[in-house]
């Protein structure tokens, strides 16, 4: 993709990176205050949906963090995708994503959406990132409401991605 400035000169990669970073921080600032979530079930067993539903319960109360569920993709900033992305659902998933106003985030939720449970076959793509541009991955089967909260806050840049630095070696500090 070739990009040019208003003056016609080529955009340097440094300028692009600076602009991208500026946009990213502006988006994080906006999304950090209020974010609307649309859930998308692409063939999950509904265990993930049970946990997502618990986020709205008094114990987790995601509204205190400025996060809200919306039934309309056109009102949504973030798409919370569950399930192994059935081939029959891919067109609907793409349309949902396209219907969302930008800037938008996609969060793959649960082991199915991350490619852990189903292999790609005649019925499913096997993971959400085969069809949608995923920004944050939340493991779990299902992810607990706390894990979901952490993932949503990672997506909006309010918490750091912690797992990338972990070794999963017992006794290691990181």
């Amino acid at each position, binding site marked *: 993709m070739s990009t040019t400035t208003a003056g016609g000169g080529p955009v340097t990669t440094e300028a692009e990176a600076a602009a991208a970073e500026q946009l990213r921080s502006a988006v994080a600032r906006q999304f950090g205050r209020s974010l609307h979530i649309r859930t998308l079930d692409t063939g999950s067993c509904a265990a993930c949906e049970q946990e997502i539903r618990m986020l709205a319960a008094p*114990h987790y109360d995601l509204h205190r963090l400025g996060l809200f569920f919306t039934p309309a993709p056109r009102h949504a900033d973030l798409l919370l995708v569950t399930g192994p992305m059935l081939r029959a659902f891919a067109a609907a998933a793409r349309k949902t994503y396209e219907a969302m106003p930008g800037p938008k985030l996609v969060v793959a939720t649960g082991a199915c959406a991350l*490619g*852990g449970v189903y292999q790609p076959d005649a019925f499913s793509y096997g993971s959400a990132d085969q069809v949608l541009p995923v920004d944050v*991955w939340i493991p779990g*089967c299902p992810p607990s409401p706390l894990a979901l909260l952490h993932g949503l*806050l*990672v997506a909006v840049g309010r918490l750091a991605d912690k*797992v990338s630095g972990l070794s999963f070696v017992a006794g290691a500090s990181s």
Partner: protein
Amino acid sequence: MPLWFVRGLRRGVVTTRYPDRSEMSARDLPTPPAFRPGALTGEIADGLVAICPSRALTREGGTLIFDVGACTACGRCGEYAPGAVTASGEFELAAARRSGLVKRIGLGAEVTR
């Protein structure tokens, strides 16, 4: 009865303070495994790969590759090899890169032999 429930009844507030404060109920959650490389032999690693129902584990020579994203925290690996596998206790597992969830664990016992 979960402690948070009792505390909530006493204070009259049930809502968690996460992420500003750590959440005690997280300790009761099933979590992905952590491995003890010193106790991992090739034989045990092959057994773990065979027993994992979600293909979260694969072996590549002297390395056990653990895909946290594929793990369902079912605990079968911990039952199969309690000496080499323990619960990690980590629940904040969201990653901004898919590759950040793939962990390479050296088979310590294999290397020293």
